[in-house]
């Protein structure tokens, strides 16, 4: 039995950020997580290991492409064990570092699973056996999310993996089916394709990355199509069965050839989204409310229906992104300290770490159309940019979504190499209420890809240096 001021349940990027912030503010903190160190899905089986593998995939792809520049390497030899060890080492370094920070901050770390006894008490079933009861003044629930399954299709087979299984890199299969053309499926699909697997992607909607602006996705498609063995759109998986040497998958979809309706793959990756871990035992009994989609309901300060309980991150709603969770962590801690704060971002960046990357923030063209909001879109194609040509990556597009009345930048979308880094400037522009003129009049370093943001702003005013728009030709 111990007591603390703040208990944080879950040590992902939301939970550990909350615990560290609370400790820095002088509060006494207990952090609970089943893993030996903080990190959560993001660091252990999400953002970080996938980026390590995507980096490797990019090196393979660039080495291959180098023949176009007169540098020819042999076919890569892949030592899966060593690759897996590299990835494990990345994870180990980061989570170990976080473990050190826990100690430095004198945060009490309990490895185990928490359940609520009442609104002031949790019980932690410790991983090493035994249990500990902790009473607290405030709790922050940051229990995260888990991969969703396709309803009615789950089969218990080692050949059928979720994102965690795929990151384990059990082998390099000859063929892989990726169910779901969202960002997890495309990122992991890219990794396996680069390693030599014939990857098929099946997506039930009409395009990859549903929700993203189509012009950005088009840029990705141009590289994704030759990389992947096959991309099946408007197609559903209707059945899966483990057979000798593979998984037999049944498909249905408009215009699908009979021969394609049943195919066998060495492995299947199911990446159809994630579900919140809102079923923390005891939570229902103390009055914390969930919404219809199973997320914990919170107000703008991340406070749940029970006043001394807060919740942050994937468990409170979309977008389920690490950087949203860690921002929410700060808000929740400040709310606990009685400050008048609210979670009120104007732009949450989204990045798909494929090659090329796709990133966007703020208002998308798709949103604007759905809302019937009048916007002007200024696009700058990378083909006109010096750096893009120099690195042989002209397959890019930068665009600004601009309010025609005030000329404010409402949203930014980027497709191209390094888009994930470039979008940060877009987020700052949207948050600061920058006008297109502010972006255009800010000197950007030459020659860099960041110039595309400045040039897109200049396109809006009709005087981009590197884009000449001749008068429209008579086309009919």
């Amino acid at each position, binding site marked *: 039995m111990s007591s603390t001021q703040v208990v944080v349940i879950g040590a992902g990027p939301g939970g550990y950020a909350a615990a560290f912030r609370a400790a820095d503010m002088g509060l006494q903190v207990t952090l609970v997580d089943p893993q030996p160190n903080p990190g959560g899905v993001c660091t252990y089986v999400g953002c970080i290991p996938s980026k390590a593998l995507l980096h490797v995939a990019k090196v393979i792809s660039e080495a291959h492409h180098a023949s176009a520049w007169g540098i020819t390497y042999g076919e890569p030899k892949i030592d899966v064990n060593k690759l897996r060890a590299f990835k494990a080492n990345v994870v180990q370094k980061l989570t170990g570092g976080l473990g050190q920070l826990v100690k430095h901050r004198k945060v009490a770390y309990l490895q185990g699973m928490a359940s609520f006894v009442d609104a002031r008490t949790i019980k932690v079933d410790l991983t090493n056996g035994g249990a500990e009861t902790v009473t607290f003044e405030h709790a922050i629930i940051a229990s995260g999310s888990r991969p969703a399954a396709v309803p009615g299709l789950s089969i218990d087979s080692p050949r059928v993996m979720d994102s965690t299984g795929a990151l384990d890199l059990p082998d390099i299969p000859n063929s892989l089916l990726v169910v779901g053309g969202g960002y997890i499926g495309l990122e992991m699909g890219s990794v396996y394709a680069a390693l030599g697997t014939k990857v098929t992607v099946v997506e039930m909607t009409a395009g990859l990355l549903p929700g993203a602006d189509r012009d950005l996705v*088009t840029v990705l498609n141009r590289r994704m199509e030759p990389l992947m063995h096959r991309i099946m*759109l408007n197609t559903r998986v209707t059945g899966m069965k483990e057979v000798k040497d593979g998984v037999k998958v049944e498909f249905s979809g408009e215009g699908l050839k009979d021969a394609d309706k049943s195919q066998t793959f060495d492995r299947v990756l199911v990446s159809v989204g994630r579900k919140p871990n809102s079923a923390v035992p005891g939570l229902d009994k103390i009055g914390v409310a969930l919404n219809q989609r199973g997320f914990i309901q919170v107000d703008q300060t991340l406070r749940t229906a029970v006043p001394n309980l807060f919740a942050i991150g994937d468990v409170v709603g979309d977008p389920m992104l690490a950087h949203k969770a860690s921002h929410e962590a700060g808000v929740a801690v400040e709310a606990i300290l009685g400050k008048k704060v609210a979670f009120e971002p104007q732009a949450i960046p989204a990045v798909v770490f494929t090659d090329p990357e796709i990133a966007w923030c703020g208002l998308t063209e*798709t*949103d604007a159309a759905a*809302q019937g909001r009048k916007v002007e879109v200024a696009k700058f194609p990378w083909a006109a940019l010096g750096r893009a040509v120099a690195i042989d990556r002209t397959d890019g597009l930068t665009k600004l979504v601009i309010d025609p009345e005030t000329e404010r930048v409402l949203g930014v979308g980027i497709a191209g190499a390094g888009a994930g880094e470039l979008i940060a400037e877009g987020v700052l522009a949207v948050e600061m209420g920058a006008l297109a003129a502010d972006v255009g009049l800010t000197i950007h370093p030459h020659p860099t890809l960041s110039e595309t943001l400045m040039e897109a702003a200049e396109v809006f*005013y009709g005087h981009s240096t590197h884009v000449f728009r001749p008068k429209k030709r008579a086309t009919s």
Partner: protein
Amino acid sequence: MPIEFKLPELGENVEKGDVVRVMVKVGDVVKKDQSVLELETDKATIEVPASEGGTVSEVRVKPGDKVKVGQVVLVLSEAAADGKGKPAAAAAPTKDAPEPQAAAGPKAVPAPAPQQPAAAPAPAVAASSTSGPELRSAGRSAAVVAIASARPAPAAEPAAALVAAAPSVRRYARELGVDIGEVSGSGPGGRIGHEDVTKYVKSAMGGGGAARGGAAGVRVPPLPDFSKWGEVESRPMSNIRRVTAEHLTAAWQAPHVTQHDKADITTLEEFRHAFGKRAEAAGGKLTVTAILVKIVATAIGRYPQFASSVDMANEAIIFKKYCHIGIAVDTPNGLLVPVIRDADQKGIVDVAVELAQLSQKARDKKLTREEMSGGVFSITNLGGIGGSFFTPIINRPEVAILGVSRTVTEPVWRESSFVPRQMLPLSLSYDHRVIDGADAARFLRFVAEGLEQPLSMQL
């Protein structure tokens, strides 16, 4: 005759493209040269104009499709007479569709969404359109909507959603309890700065709620250094002075007009002398102001818009069914306006007595807030000091004020000769938003005649 619209030549070496957007749907009436498709080619994004006009009977492509030059993309039926076909349900968006212009120029990328009704509950549309299994990848639209719907009090979210203010400024506003959506920004594009929030708070605390109006957004140039021309002394404003200054600044925003008139009060003065004793016995003084209170109360009964208020936020005019009249009182500390309640139901002597009491309280700084609020119309009498005619400022949120100057004996032409008459100068300032000039002239004439011929008010 159905017309097959094929993808035309798009330019040198451009043979195919990806459909980014289909800008028409079945049933739409399109004009020749109206943009129907947005196509992305290797070189640029191009809007493809229709080669013929007609009603769209079939759309053979969808966003994401690859199309080649010569491929049929739309089928048009029976070329309508220059777009004046049947009024299709989608007529409005069709009209809004942009005219073809410079190929893929920056301004050529339009924002119309012919397929999407621009309905108010747009977030719901966004949510349902992205609720596929890969919701996580659906981006910010679904994300923000989901967050909003997950929150017990989402009402505050839309206002704050796209306010042009830096995160530090939004946080500052929240600390001060200010809804950032209410603050008007003085920066480029209406951007809200730290100082805009401070200014909003100051004006909101000064009463009058003037922050919504223009004053908050107007930059007042800084004062010069007066001391370079001679000795100066800076004294802090008294509370009354500060409130008066802020209140009148807000009041000044009403479009003011002042109407002048004169009333012949020769007979009234005889009446005042004859009955003055009676009022004095009761503890009051039968002043012109007291009599005017009664006359104005009667005039308001006839012209109720003079006791109204303007509610621009709700685009309404509020008429008050009570008749409390404010009287401006000059005190050593500044201007105060006590209010005589239900003046229309009181006799002149009662009004006179109450007026004397309130004036004394004003000078003794004993007026309560209650005694200074609720007025529907104000009277300000400078006759005791002098002058003829002035332009009083309306006591916001009232819409009219009557200014009274000093009575002067003037020669007045009567029948065939000048006769000496005692003339009272009257100045009526009114808010032109609710009161028309003719009504103001009538109102003031009614008051003047009430002074000249009290029985006229009963006509």
